[in-house]
Each structure stands twice: as structure tokens, then as C-alpha cells.
């Protein structure tokens, strides 16, 4: 028997988080003005499409991520992973991601390969280096914790417009992380099965379409978690990425911080490695 299932598929996901969270938001064009005649649903969708549009064409990226998990007693543990993302331009197909753990040591070399789907469960494989075994795993579960963190799989998977319904809730000051900027409040409701949320509310800055904050409401529609995204940097004069993301679970008091190294775009990512057969020779 092979024990290691390692906290389900989720790792793969992380990679893409980047794209959801970080990636999604780049900027320039203001579309708020053209929204005057729109319904809140139309305007919400338009904001989401603009977020997505501004992230098109990044082709691929890679970075190193540290996840710091903290419980209510303040004890912390750290994971370190390398993430490569491959953009799939077709809007009906999601991006691909490859995530490799470097830390903690007992799971060093463990890797996840994930092909994001829009409404279907993603395709996911895990690689267990000690056994040299690649396992296809079920990704039907979107709401479980990712490697014991406060991020659920669905929080990390790549942002695809068609995964959600949208509603523009209004405009608000972006708050202290982006002083002086106005944000759209964008609500999104998952269209895929097995989400852990009824809805999420995001604050999206009106200049660059960066996601500044997200509040997650559980299935009973009570506030479950909130995520703050800071330390944004722009790459290739277009793509904004957050380098620090802080998730707080209001129901358990636990927290997870993601710290990203600088991203590298269009360099050193081999599309052929996004292949479950190659995965078996990753290490």
C-alpha cells in the first residue's frame, strides 16, 4: 500500500493562485465610466473580464513561494514550494501548473501537476519521489485545506472568468494598502460543484485591477476567511503580481501567509514538463 496521499491534490493549485490572485489584475483602462447604463451583474462581469484581459499573454511564469502557517497559539510552520505556470490562452480551458515542494524535508520533491478546468474538476497528478510513483488524484473536492493551510484548493486555482457569476456591489476606498485608490466591490458566486463558499467579495482597484482583499463566505453565508494581498509588483510593463498574501480564518483564528519571490516570466519554463509522464522523472 502507499500511504502518502498528501493532503489531496491541492498543491497544483497554488501555482495558479498566482494567477487568480496575483495574476489576474493588471492595468490601465478604466471601465467604470462605461458602466453607467449597466446592471450590477453586467458591470460585475465586465470587471471580471477586464481583470482576466489584463493578464492575457503572460505565456508562463515561475516563482518560489513560502507558506507560513500559524495557529491560534501562535505556533508556526513553513512550507516552501516552487511553482511554474503555463498559460493556456483558450478561455474555455484553464491554465496548467507544476508545483514542487522543497520544504518541509519529508515531502521534498513531492510534486503536483494540475490542468485547470472551467466547471469540471481539474486534472491532477501527484508525484511521490520515494516510490517514483505518479498518481492521478481526484480533484472533486475544492473546499478542503491545502497542505494544512487556510487556503482551500479553490482559493489557489487559476482565475477563469467562466467559473463564477458576478455582481458589482459598489465602490469603496481601497484601504491602507493602496491609499488614495478607489476599489470596485465585486461579488462572485461559484458555478462549479463542491465549492466551500456561497460567495466571495473582492476589492479590485480601479486603476490597475489588482485584487486588494477578498472575503469568503461559507455555505451558511457567514464570514469564514479574509485575504489581503499586498506588495504588488508589475512585470513586463503589464502583469501585476502580489508578493504577500495573508489569509485569516475568522472561525478558527488560524492564519496563513504566502510570501512570493520575484516572478520570472517567459524564461526557463518548459511546456513539455507539464506532462504526467515527465513528472515521474522530476527527481
Amino acid at each position, binding site marked *: *500500500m*502507499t*500511504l*502518502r*496521499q*498528501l*493532503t*489531496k491534490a491541492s498543491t497544483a493549485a497554488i501555482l495558479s493562485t498566482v494567477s487568480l490572485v496575483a495574476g489576474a489584475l493588471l492595468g490601465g483602462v478604466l471601465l467604470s465610466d462605461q458602466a453607467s447604463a449597466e446592471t450590477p451583474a453586467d458591470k460585475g462581469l465586465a470587471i471580471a473580464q477586464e481583470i482576466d484581459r489584463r493578464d492575457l499573454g503572460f505565456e508562463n511564469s515561475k516563482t518560489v513561494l513560502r507558506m507560513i*502557517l500559524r*495557529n491560534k497559539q501562535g505556533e508556526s*510552520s*513553513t512550507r516552501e514550494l516552487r511553482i511554474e505556470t503555463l498559460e493556456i490562452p483558450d478561455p474555455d480551458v484553464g491554465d496548467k501548473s507544476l508545483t514542487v515542494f522543497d*520544504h*518541509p*524535508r*519529508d*515531502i*521534498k520533491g513531492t510534486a503536483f501537476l494540475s490542468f485547470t478546468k472551467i466547471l469540471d*474538476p481539474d*486534472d491532477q497528478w501527484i508525484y511521490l519521489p520515494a*516510490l*517514483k*510513483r*505518479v*498518481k*492521478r*488524484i*481526484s480533484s*472533486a*473536492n475544492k*473546499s*478542503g*485545506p491545502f*497542505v*494544512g*493551510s487556510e487556503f482551500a484548493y479553490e482559493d489557489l486555482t487559476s482565475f477563469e472568468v467562466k467559473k463564477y457569476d458576478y455582481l458589482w456591489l459598489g465602490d469603496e476606498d481601497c484601504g491602507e494598502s493602496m491609499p488614495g485608490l478607489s476599489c470596485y466591490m465585486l461579488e462572485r458566486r461559484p458555478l462549479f460543484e*463542491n465549492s*466551500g463558499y456561497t460567495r466571495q467579495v473582492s476589492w479590485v482597484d480601479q486603476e490597475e485591477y489588482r485584487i486588494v482583499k477578498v472575503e469568503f463566505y461559507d455555505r451558511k453565508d457567514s464570514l469564514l476567511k479574509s485575504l489581503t494581498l499586498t506588495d504588488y509588483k508589475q512585470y513586463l510593463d503589464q502583469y501585476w503580481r502580489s508578493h504577500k498574501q495573508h489569509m485569516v480564518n475568522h472561525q478558527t483564528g488560524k492564519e496563513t501567509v504566502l510570501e512570493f519571490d520575484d516572478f520570472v516570466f517567459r524564461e526557463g519554463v*518548459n511546456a*513539455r514538463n507539464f*506532462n*504526467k*509522464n*515527465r513528472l*515521474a*522523472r522530476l*527527481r
Partner: protein
Amino acid sequence: MSRALRGLAVLGLALLNAMENPGAAQDIDALGGAEFELSGNAAFELRIHPESPQFEGQRDNRLAPSVTFAPEFRLFWDTARFTFIPFLRYDPEDTVGRTHSDIRELNLYTESDDWDLTVGLGKVFWGVAESRHLVDIINQTDGVEDIDEEDKLGQPMVQLNLLRDWGEVGFFLLPGFRERTFVGQKGRLRLPLRVDTDNPIYESAAEDRRIDAAARYAHTIGDWDFGASYFHGTGRAPTLVPDFDANGSRVLRPRYEVIDQFGLDVQATLDAWLLKFEGIHRSGQGDSFFATVGGFEYTFFGVSEEGADLGVLAEYHYDGRGDDAPPTIFDNDIFLGARYVWNDEFDTEFLGGGVIDQSNQSVLLSVEASRRLNDQWSLDLESRFFLNANDDPLLESFSDDGFVLLRLSRFF
């Protein structure tokens, strides 16, 4: 016993101490254009045997400690990698069989966009099933490590893989054969007679220098992952032939036949269902035969407040081999098991199950659990017990050797 235990503890502590401050040994350092990485683990194991052994000569210890050490050295270049992974186990109870060393990997790997090549001692795994690894054949089983056939000896190989849009094709040249390892006379989980590993019988005139060959095609289409494989060479599992050694004592001599084996492995991943199938057709060991394992794993997600998952597994085994082939316990068996994954920060996991023989009702019970203690340390629990084993010709030898094993591992 207690002296051995103390000796081991001292040795273990010394090892761990040496690793506590590894200095430059951590992570990646530049080394002549390549990046060097040292990692690996050392472990202290304690096997607890509630029962006395049944054979004369076996050590009657309730507590059987041993240690393992497996450093991993790697050099990385842009499109190439060198790997060296030696393995060492010291078991004071069985210094002949279980105390052993091996080179798990010593190879050079190089990759291009649509092909890759591995040359040296390596390891390859094929298959999808949980309770038996039927199609997996490249590596010899390191039989003294565990009875689950998941520990493997390093296999000399030239492995070439071609990656195409229509799937991957792998070609294997396997120069040199590794003999299966067997527990010594003093150890637990051994056969009634000594296995005379010094005098194996080979069908091939080249003996252990025969060059074996294998090929595999693997692909994914939608929810389906599948692989088809072919192996021609010396079978990894020996037939054990009763004989006498030079002293006139009765022994079992391993006999290795040349076989042809076709294998097929398929997994369908349908939401929370994993449907699995492996099948082989083998000739060269008496009458040719088919063997299969097939079943499912279904996962109930989020069964606890904290988001734990519960998986239930069932697999059916059939094996049509005759008396001239190496015996197997999986002739007509059902495996039932459960997996519980806490999804916590310690990666706590549990997997337990039993292989039930349909004809003689013998049961092989198996439990594996693990939990990370902190960044460096992990704790594993493994247990195997043999119930109703007296009517099963294979399990009977192990019937008093059920154990609970605790393993404390230090990763670096």
C-alpha cells in the same frame, strides 16, 4: 537485547547529531557550473512483536530495533541531473539478511523537449493498484525491508523516453540482474528453510549478466490514464526449489526463469471515484497465465469540521498461475481498506486494510500511519498481522511474526 538497543541508540544519536549542524550540506551550492544538493533521511525503527517466532533459530525478541540511513546527493545542470542515493540498514537481530546496503540510484539523467534518457542504477514504478503492484517489474524487490514489495533495489538501466502528442513511449535496456533479498535465519518474517542466495539457479546461460529489455506506452485521454508494457527477461520473483546445501542441510534455492510479460494498467478518475485495473499475461514459468487486480477508491471529502477526507478502497485479485510459477498470496483475494487524511499541518494520514483469501479465509492485515512532528522529524506507524494463516502455504510461515513498527525519521 537491551545492549543492542543502547548501541543503536548511541549510533542513531551520533548520526543525527552529525546532521543537526550540516553547515554547507543544506540545499544547493554551486559546484563547477552545477548546483549541488544534499538531502535524505536517517531513521530509527522499533518493531514490536507480540508473539514468539515459530522457527528454530529465530531471535525471540519482543522489541527489535534497527536503523536506516539514506542520503541523497544530486547535481543539477540546466537539462541534466546526476543522482546518487545509497541505502543502509543495520538490524542487530539479523546481521546476515536484513542488515544490508544497496545503491538505490546512481544515474545520469538528461532531457530535451521531446525525449529524456537515464543511464545508471535507477528506479521505475508502473501501476495504479494499491494492494498489489502487478505490472511493476523493472526493479527487483528488496524483500528484507517489508513484505509489501514497495522497497526496490537499484536496477542498472538505459532508459529512453519519447514524448509525443499521442503519448509517451519508453524503452528500457536492463544490463544485469539483481537477486531478490531474503531475511536471514535469525530474523522474523522468514520462510521455514534457509533461502540459499549464494546458489541461485538461472534459466539464462548468462545468469545475472543477461541483458533484459522492456517497453512501455503510457497516455492520458480525458479522465483515463493508461499504460501498456512488455518485458522480456529474467523474472524478478524466483521460484524456490527445495535442495540441500554443502553441509547437507535442507535449503530453498531461488530459481530465476526467463519470462515474457505483457502488462496493462488503467485508471479512470471520475469525480470522487478512482477506478483501477491492472492485468498481466506471463509466460516462461510453467503454463502461461493471466493475473489481474481491479477495484476502486472512493473519497468522502470534508468528513470532519477541519476538512479531513475518508477514502474507502476495494480491490479484487485473481491470479491464474500454476505450481511451476513463483507462488503468490493474491490467487483469489479481496482487499478492503480505508484511508483517512486529516489535511492538517502535520500531514497526518492513516491507511489500513486487509487482504482476505477467498478460498482459505486467511487475512493479511496492514496498517500504515504517519505524522510530521516538525520540520526535521516524522513519525510513522506500520503494522502487519496474519490471521487464519495456518491454511495458507505462504502466510503460514509469517503467522507468528505479526508486528507493530514505530519509525522515527530525521530528514535533512
